[in-house]
């Protein structure tokens, strides 16, 4: 394999991304879904930073990743508030019970 290059990081990011997606898709617990989201975001962040490191784009990747981190934090806060509300309304955190969006 030789030198650790861009692709290796991208693979890691892909794995994290897929894990996050699967997590979102399979977890019935709302908090678990949020965790999936975090994983997805981290997968993406790895990519950003990798591009920043291994391409001549410079700091853009890192800056974006930084924003993503901040946004993820904000998202987590709001999502938790929502989860709490959801819980208050449904007395459960099971997302399958919240099918109000059903057509």
């Amino acid at each position, binding site marked *: 394999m030789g030198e650790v290059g861009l692709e290796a990081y991208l693979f890691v990011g892909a794995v994290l991304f897929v894990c996050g997606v699967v997590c979102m898709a*399979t977890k019935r*617990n709302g908090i678990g879904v949020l965790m999936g989201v975090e994983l997805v975001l981290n997968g993406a962040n790895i990519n950003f930073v990798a591009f920043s*490191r291994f391409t001549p784009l410079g*700091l853009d990747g890192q800056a974006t990743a*930084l924003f993503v981190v901040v946004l*993820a934090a904000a998202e987590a806060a709001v999502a938790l508030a929502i989860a709490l509300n959801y819980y208050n309304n449904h007395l459960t955190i099971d997302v399958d019970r919240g099918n109000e969006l059903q057509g």
Partner: protein
Amino acid sequence: MTYLLEQAANGIGGTDGLLFWVFAILSCVGAVAVVATQNIVRMAFWLVVSLGSVAALFFLMHADFLGAAQLLIYVGGTVVLLVFGVMLTASGHTIKVQTSPAETLLGGGVGLLLLCVLIFAISTVNWADISQQIPAAGDSPAIVDAREDASLAESLSVATTPEAKATAEKALAAVEARRQAGRTIRQLGLSFYGLRPDHMNSSANAASAPGYLLPFEIISVHLLVVLIGAAYLARAKRRVTPGSGTDL
């Protein structure tokens, strides 16, 4: 043993390569464990492992500020927040909500497919060519570092005189010092003020590559809004009394 390690390190790219593999595997394992675990609290633990490894990977990519932020915000903030959430919502029967095996299997299948697609995509792209085509010119930081290392090593090796060696060592020490001092904090900070030090020398795009002053401000306000919104949402009253169940 040392040799083996060294060889291994070489085989896998030296010390940095070794560390990469460790943390890469760790983060992947953590992520998979998050998916696989059914208990929400354990999921949180594995998530911490995974995110922490990612932070380590950031360090490996010389994104030290970002890595720090990852640790602080994610591992220190977000995950704690999640755990709070778990605790606030957890009651006996909801701490473990089982997913049906079929769904898990389906999710796994689709995940694998997606992974295959991504890996296929990543591996088919010739990233070097794409780097070449980036108009910003210049080389990637990794290459610059490598070239710097190579030139320092060469000057060190060709240095015959002690003065020259001393100079080379001094230069090496300066580079090391600079690298130790964190290469990105200052740049990131400047970029948030609208300056792009990494592009200073590539005059062509100096004007076209402005900093992140506006996004930064926006994200600041955004955080404030989120703060207030989250507080508002979280303090909403419980509308359904347990046991009524009519609105379910």
